[in-house]
């Protein structure tokens, strides 16, 4: 699904913010991307959602070398990726409904299908009575839920989330993470960048640990000390 080989990234003539990244995410994997602020998590996500090209190394996505993909084929590739941004990046003049509907409209879905699926999903994230609300009128948590709904509405094969639970309470955070888990069970590869180690510890999924622009550690929580009851608690969330 995703393979990085000796990937490096620098901005302009500055130092490398990512160095010699080599790792592989298999199809249907679920990873937390952790690390301190400034470690390069957002830069790594940008490489993954094709907003940037690496300054060196090879990235393979959906079995295609990214640098060799013709420009006209990039949109189709990007439509298979869902992204949740830390700052939401909603279109302020579009309603919650239209923001969430956008990926489906970009794919050319029928309006009847769009209406059905978007309404269902927004209801699921407890925004069913805010379909016509504009983002500036929503709270941070509500905006985050709209952003997540927009990222998952088109059932992406790869879902990338940058601090997706940073603005919501624990109950909503668990609910949203379970949405990611459900997508994962349906075959979506998920990468969630987060500072919230408490949240990470409640799920038994591998971590990608970034420190000073390098992947320091890739491990599954199953390999860590078992913490009985946490997974069950997550299951109830």
């Amino acid at each position: 699904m995703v393979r990085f080989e000796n990937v490096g990234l620098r901005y302009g003539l500055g130092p490398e913010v990512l160095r010699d990244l080599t790792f592989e995410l298999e199809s249907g994997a679920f990873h937390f991307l952790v690390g301190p602020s400034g470690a390069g998590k957002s830069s790594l996500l940008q490489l993954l959602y094709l907003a940037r090209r690496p300054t060196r190394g090879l990235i393979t996505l959906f079995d295609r070398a990214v640098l060799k993909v013709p420009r006209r084929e990039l949109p189709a590739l990007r439509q298979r990726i869902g992204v949740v941004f830390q700052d939401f990046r909603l279109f302020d003049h579009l309603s919650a409904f239209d923001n969430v509907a956008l990926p489906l409209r970009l794919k050319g879905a029928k309006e009847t299908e769009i209406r059905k699926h978007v309404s269902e999903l927004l209801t699921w994230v407890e925004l069913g009575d805010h379909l016509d609300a504009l983002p500036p009128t929503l709270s941070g948590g509500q905006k985050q839920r709209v952003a997540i709904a927009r990222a998952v509405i088109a059932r992406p094969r790869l879902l990338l989330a940058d601090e997706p639970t940073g603005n919501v309470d624990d109950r909503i955070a668990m609910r949203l993470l379970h949405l990611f888990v459900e997508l994962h069970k349906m075959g979506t590869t998920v990468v969630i960048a987060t500072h919230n180690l408490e949240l990470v510890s409640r799920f038994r999924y591998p971590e990608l640990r970034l420190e000073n622009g390098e992947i320091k550690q890739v491990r599954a929580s199953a390999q860590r000390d078992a913490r009985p009851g946490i997974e069950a608690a997550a299951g109830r969330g």
Partner: protein
Amino acid sequence: MAGHIRVLPLDRDDSRRYLPWIVAVMVYLAAMTLAGAMATASMASRWQTGLTGALTVQLQPAAETQANDGRMEAVLSILRADAAVASAEPVDEEKMLGFIQPWLGRDGLTLDLPLPRLVDVRLHDRASVDLVDLAARLEAAAPGTSVDDHARWLTGILKLARVIRFIAFGTVALIAAAAITVLVFATRAALAVHKDGIALLHIMGARNRFIAREFQVAALAQGFRGGLIGLLTALATLVALGGAGLNTDIGILPQVTLTTLQWLVLAALPPAAGAVALITARLTVLSVLARLA
């Protein structure tokens, strides 16, 4: 929630807010220029139609009125005997006074002025006359007679009309070029204003033509709206000009009259402005986005 969703709020940009007014000014100038050129073309055409197949015979005033009348009879006799001539009618004195009234006024002065006598001659269709021979025969019968087939005057008028039309089309082309330049810069400015939204759309998998559609739909609406404002203002000006022309009795300025086809040309300006705006926006957006990574 249904229908076309404008993902980028282009109508709210300062760079595009004044675009309809700029287009309105351009279309106003284009409409006035075209109307002037088309009215001149119509006028020249009317003159050509009216004067082709016509001659004017002029008798210089003689010392005595009685002698004048005798010469007129001789001239009419020769003209009416010519096979090519369909009709030959003297222009009456009242009409003559009407011709010079705009310049000299209607007072006692003109009554004392020695005026030439004119004969309006109409030829049969496709008939031709040997002007030299006719002039010689008339001069022999009535000294002081001259024949004018208007060719020299008409050639000059038609040449002037052609030049005016050429200049008008050139002016409209310049106006269109200026409008396109403004549209290109406005579109580039809007692309800069909305670069974050465009980047987000790209990340979500939007194709360049989807983004271009956003711009071209806005440009079409703004171009058409501006074109309509410009055309309506031009029509109001033309109506006012027509009214001013009707109210004056100097008879120098040609009346602004357009054919149905020419009115349709003017009516096509707003859609044309919309189409130019649409195409310009589309090509500009696609060109700029193609250069992006």
